[in-house]
């Protein structure tokens, strides 16, 4: 009879487990639940949500947050039956592609005219509206630099000096948007031919092409590598946490990318989505962005993130976003042929 008891018990346990993840309790509130897809940083979500909901008490934000690549892939895979109402905080290059595929609901937010025109899609009505810009710069570990007697670089040209052999990491442009905007910036600053020549030389100093835009500066911060080329915000936040890091702005200029807001075509909550789009373009929202990003869409907002060098706008390269999108496949194919194919383990 033992077996029977055990089976009865197992059945009971099973039924209990099934009941546990059964139907969720029905929602009782009248609030509109707005599904927002985002690649914003984790610690930004809560303050952003609270601030928006305080001004719009009838709307509740439900975040779906992941890294840029995952969120973009998810949005594109859901194209035929969209689940997101609105995108708030995703790279312009990804969102631009979605605009060209007809996945977005064009809408010009109430305060759009007040924004820096560089942050607008340029269409009427706007397909997307920029929030802030992030940069690809150089993170230098001063503790390791001192230990190994390596000077702080000041320019892109410095990075190809032999003293930095095997001590630089950068994102792989084939897997990271930050990586691509870095490569595209070099090709635009130096011209194609000189740009590839520069990367040939740089390749000798690269220890690893990483599949992430934020990891290089984190690796530099933790002393895994001397130098990381990558996302600025991450470098700044690591420094705040105590990393011996210096954020270097190479004097030739920097590649950059926008984070944007866009309404997804087919949303069942269009009115609420428009309210969020309006709010995201407001001065109040931009003041929130300015706590993390050194450059935001609303002119004249006081910039407050710590650890940034001043006057960043001046070093941002003239970035032709359309050129970047059009030439992406070609540049990545060339890059992969030159550097990725022969990147087998380094000879010991």
């Amino acid at each position, binding site marked *: 009879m033992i*077996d029977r008891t055990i089976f009865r018990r197992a059945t009971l346990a099973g039924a209990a487990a099934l009941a546990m993840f059964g139907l969720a309790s029905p929602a009782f509130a009248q609030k509109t639940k707005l599904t927002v897809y985002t690649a914003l940083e*984790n610690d930004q979500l809560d303050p952003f949500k609270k601030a928006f909901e305080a001004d719009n008490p009838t709307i509740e934000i439900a975040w779906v947050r992941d890294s840029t690549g*995952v969120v973009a892939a998810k949005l594109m895979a859901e194209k035929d039956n969209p689940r997101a109402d609105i995108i708030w905080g995703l790279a312009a290059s990804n969102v631009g592609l979605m605009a060209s595929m007809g996945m977005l609901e064009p809408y010009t937010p109430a305060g759009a005219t007040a924004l820096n025109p560089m942050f607008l899609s340029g269409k009427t009505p706007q397909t997307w509206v920029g929030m802030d810009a992030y940069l690809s710069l150089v993170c230098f570990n001063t503790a390791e630099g001192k230990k190994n007697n390596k000077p702080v670089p000041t320019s892109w040209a410095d990075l190809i000096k032999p003293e930095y052999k095997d001590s630089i990491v950068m994102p792989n442009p084939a897997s990271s948007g930050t990586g691509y905007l870095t490569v595209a910036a070099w090709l635009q600053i130096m011209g194609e031919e000189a740009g590839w020549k520069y990367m040939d030389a740089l390749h000798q100093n690269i220890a*690893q092409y990483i599949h992430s835009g934020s990891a290089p500066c984190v690796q530099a911060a933790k002393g895994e590598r001397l130098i990381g080329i990558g996302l600025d915000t991450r470098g700044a936040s690591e420094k705040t946490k105590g990393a011996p890091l210096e954020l270097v702005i190479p004097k030739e200029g920097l590649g950059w990318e926008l984070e944007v807001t866009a309404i997804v075509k087919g949303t069942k909550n269009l009115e609420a989505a428009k309210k969020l789009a309006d709010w995201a373009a407001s001065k109040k929202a931009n003041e929130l962005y300015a706590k993390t990003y050194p450059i935001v869409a609303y002119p004249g907002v006081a910039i407050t993130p710590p650890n940034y060098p001043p006057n960043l706008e001046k070093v941002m390269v003239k970035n032709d976003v359309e050129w970047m999108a059009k030439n992406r496949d070609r540049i990545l194919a060339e890059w992969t042929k030159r550097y990725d194919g022969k990147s087998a383990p380094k000879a010991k």
Partner: protein
Amino acid sequence: MSLVVPGLKVGLSRDDLMMRAGVVLLAAILLMMLGLPLWALLAKGFEDRDGKFVGLANYVSYFSTPALFQSALNSLQVATITTLIVVPLAFLYAYALTRTVLPMRWLFQGISLIPIFAPSLLPGLALIYLFGTQGFFKALLGGGSIYGIDGIVIAQVFYCFPHATLILTTALATADARLYEAAEVLGTSKRRIFFTVTLPGAKYGLISAALVVFTLVITDFGIAKVIGGNFNVLATDVYKKVIGQQDFSMGAVVGMVLLAPAALAFLVDRLVQRKQVALLTARAVPLVPRPKLGRDLFFTAFCLLVSAAILTILGMAIWGSLIKYWPYNLSLTLDNYDFAKFDANGWDSYWNSVRMALGAAVFGTLLMFTGAWLNEKTRGFGMMRGVVQFLAFLPMAVPGLVLGLGYIFFFNAPGNPLGFLYATMGILVLNTVAHFYTVGHLTAATALKQIDPEFEAVSASLKVPIWRTFVRVTAPICLPAILDIAIYLFVNAMTTVSSVIFLYAPDTKLASVAAVNIEEAGTTAAAAALCVVIVLTSAAVKAAHLIADRFLFARLQVWRRR
């Protein structure tokens, strides 16, 4: 009362019909949770980015890239080396657990499972603390770097070891003592007994273990992504295409290439299966190892060594979760366990994970064991059983992100009647069961193959319906394997990332995904802390299993002893 005349076709009994209907139903379920979602993505390989059919054009362009060949070669190299290291290690370990007198056997068994309790993030972080540029044992690498093939192989060995040990323990656990007694009485040497009795008995398990390890390494992108450096493998190529460039067409092409090892594994399995004979006949006597000093000492030392290596990696992660800022501020703190500070969902995602894991364990075990039983015990019906067998092998060869995207394309398609599952806990459970189907199925099949068909024959002649034999005899005999499958599903559901990362909704975010997000945000210590909580949960569940095994379920197996 049909008269059986050899060579004449005999009518199907009610049992046969029922079993066949069951196999058809199983095939339909597997098709729904595996076949169709996979096809939904792989079909993109024949379309351009705008969805127009282009035939094999993507394949032509992919196969003309020189980088492909290098990636394929790298994948094969890593998989071969890892398999050659893991299978012998796991065999010795499983042998020690089942065939020698080991002090605190249960403890060693538990430790061997730790790697599957851990999200793949954990060995990655621990290896960097151990062997990275600032690592404690960097000197051991002799100037080499952990970022590259060495790192991948070390992490893969850690990650694959429990999978192989689980299969091999099942294979070695059921042996007929009479064979050994006979051999001894006949004066056969130990060596000869090992090669003529032990090894052949475990052959199916050995081949399964090798196939599982090989394909696990081929399809895993997590480890290669974190620690692989510039060492490109096929799985990171899929990642680049799908996540880096949102190019589903090319991602599907690489995904298809990755199915090749699965097809191979399937063929090998079919060949071996034909020769497998039941070991545990109705008259069998289970083998109880007798003490033998030299052998026991050797295996105890061996198990201690392996356990120490596993515990070092875990210990490193625990320590890493308690420090302030690696490597510049090593003072200790508990702040990293206050997850609400690092992720808006805080501890909620942890409870989501537990619920999902319970669901997967209950639903998955039921499906896998019943399914394996139907497929093993149905007579004839070869074609359909072949289909089921193939579908069961498929997920092993599919990188999680391919399966996850396939789930979006299939379940989110407008007009799919199953669309209600999308963005619920249900789809996460379904996806996880599908993702880990192969090992569960193999474990069940290995256990079932070792049971003499005589049990069914006797039941049939006593006119006992076959399902009753299943519930009253087969399932209780296989209870250890059934529990192993349930635990396997639970722990994997706690750690899985690559597939569910595409499927969670705002209120069903999982701890494993949260850990990846936290790590990406640069808070390594908090990510390590969440990993540690996941490991401890799975370890607690496993401990409960071992205790139950010892005091409760052991009684079910009493009949096996003399």
